[in-house]
């Protein structure tokens, strides 16, 4: 489903402080896999995740999604791809501050043109599962960090994307909510065949996934 061929990514290229963030990455993630990008801080987990999610472009190499080359798409095509196929959970919660929790969770579904009644039903379903159903009318600024992270997760999963890309999704969650989140991800993965790629060094996440891809200094050391 996701195929990366000879991916290289540099930061500050040509400068004395040049960083080789992704070093000749070759990777294949099959449909329905539940994988984790793991490694020390600065090893390139987030950069790799951003490249898979068509948020960032590699300096060389090719990325295929469902056999389609995505590295040559223009910005509008990439935006469409992210909207229709991917769900993101960022390190920071990145909620829309002027929309309430219900609208934030249903945001991607709205953009994708789901029917209002379906959105309402699905929002309530994921909000109940993540125990934020009593906050649906609140604005993000009134929620704690953990609650906002759960809203961000709910937003990513609500539209049932084909792929969920999550960067440290449990970083702001307590162990109870981390368990709920991982359980929900497992359910999505097993029952609905959603492909999930996490970037995390949370031990609990490592235990929950089926595949751990280890990175160091921008290279895969254990696929």
């Amino acid at each position: 489903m996701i195929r990366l061929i000879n991916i290289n990514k540099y930061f500050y290229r040509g400068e004395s402080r040049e960083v080789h963030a992704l070093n000749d990455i070759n990777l294949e993630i099959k449909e329905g896999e539940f994988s984790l990008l793991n490694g020390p801080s600065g090893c390139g987990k987030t950069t790799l995740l951003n490249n898979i999610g068509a948020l960032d472009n590699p300096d060389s190499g090719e990325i295929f999604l469902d056999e389609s080359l995505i590295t040559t798409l223009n910005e509008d095509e990439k935006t469409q791809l992210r909207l229709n196929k991917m769900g993101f959970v960022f390190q920071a919660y990145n909620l829309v501050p002027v929309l309430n929790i219900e609208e934030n969770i249903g945001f991607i579904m709205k953009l994708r043109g789901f029917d209002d009644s379906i959105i309402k039903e699905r929002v309530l379903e994921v909000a109940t599962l993540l125990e934020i159903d009593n906050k649906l009318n609140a604005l993000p600024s009134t929620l704690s960090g953990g609650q906002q992270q759960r809203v961000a997760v709910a937003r990513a999963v609500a539209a049932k994307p084909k792929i969920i890309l999550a960067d440290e999704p449990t970083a702001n969650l307590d162990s109870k909510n981390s368990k709920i989140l991982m359980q929900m991800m497992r359910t999505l993965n097993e029952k609905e065949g959603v492909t999930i790629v996490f970037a995390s060094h949370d031990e609990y996440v490592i235990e929950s996934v089926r595949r751990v891809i280890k990175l160091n200094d921008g290279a895969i050391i254990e696929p």
Partner: protein
Amino acid sequence: MFNIIIKLAWNNAFLRLSRTILVILMIAISMAMMLSIQGIYDGMTLNMIDKTLRSDSGEISLYHKNYRLDKNLKHNIKDASQIQTFLQTNNEIEYITKRLSVEGLSATARKSAFSNVIGINLENEIAFGQFNQFLKKGDMSFRKRGALLGSELAKTLKVNIGSKIIFSTQDHSGDINSIAVRVRGIVQTSNIALDASAVYVDLKQVQKFLGVNNQMATQIAIRTHSQTLLKELKNKYPELDVKNFLELYPMLKQMKDMMVIFTSITFLIVMLVVLIGITGVMYVSILDRIREFGIMRALGMSYQNIRYQIFLEAFLVGLTGYILGAILGFSTLYYLQNYGLNLSQYSEGMESFGMDTIIYAQMNISYFTSTFYAIITASLLSVLLPLIKIKKLNPIDVIKAET
């Protein structure tokens, strides 16, 4: 899809209140000022035109072909009374009056000045142009050989109510003749030429003094709202000089045109200031949220939808500013229309230009429609710069910046 864009635009406009209030106030105050300036400018022009129409020309005036070139008594309308009687049957004519004017010299024991005796029927003139409203001092009366003097002429001759003046001119037979009149009132029409030279005397008395019959007049003035009457009268009386007031007073037309230019320039300046002001606030406000837009693009919201949202937000803020501005502007204009703007401290200058010292503003629906288009356009233009910035935005830059 569109309801989320509307929701985002609405919430951004009205949940970020301090920015919105600032823009709304900026628009509303500028608009109210603009409307007031426009109303005052138009009020000044129309006031001058109105006084000229009422005191002299009406909308249309008829003269002998040569009268305006050579104001000799021989250039008169011989059958003026018949024409007047005939025109009174025309439904398009609201009021009609005839006058008999002759140039000459007015003198007191110490002073003399060029002047123009105008024979009028006071009742007619009151109906025609509310002539009584021009009375500045004394009585609106011709009793006992009474006369009404233009205010500037009264100053020149240094006469007051009750003073006696002698007016001398060439009569119909070519002889120099004089008439003594007593000043009963001083009138100020704000028509510079009339105020400096007019000696209003009862029409019958002037006819008698000049030795002409009561059919004769030098001018027939008409009040009408008809747009076609001028052409009709020109066709009907080819032997007469039929003119509308703008032909008779080209300066008024120039003044009117100049006021349009003034208003347009003021309008442009105010709108430019509004545009720069809103652009500044909207630019800062949108760039403050650049991260939010980056995240929305990362999540899959297209640039087109973000553009709709920002335009809609600008439109909502502009529209609210416009509504408040329209209310403020309407209230100001309503006040200025009814109570006027008192400029009496500049009375000398104003009067020398033929203007009243209290200016009553005009209010037209066109003021509100033109400002509507201008403000909405300015509001929409104000977000173009930040939109260019957002178009160039790469969502990864925003995401990276916070990790």
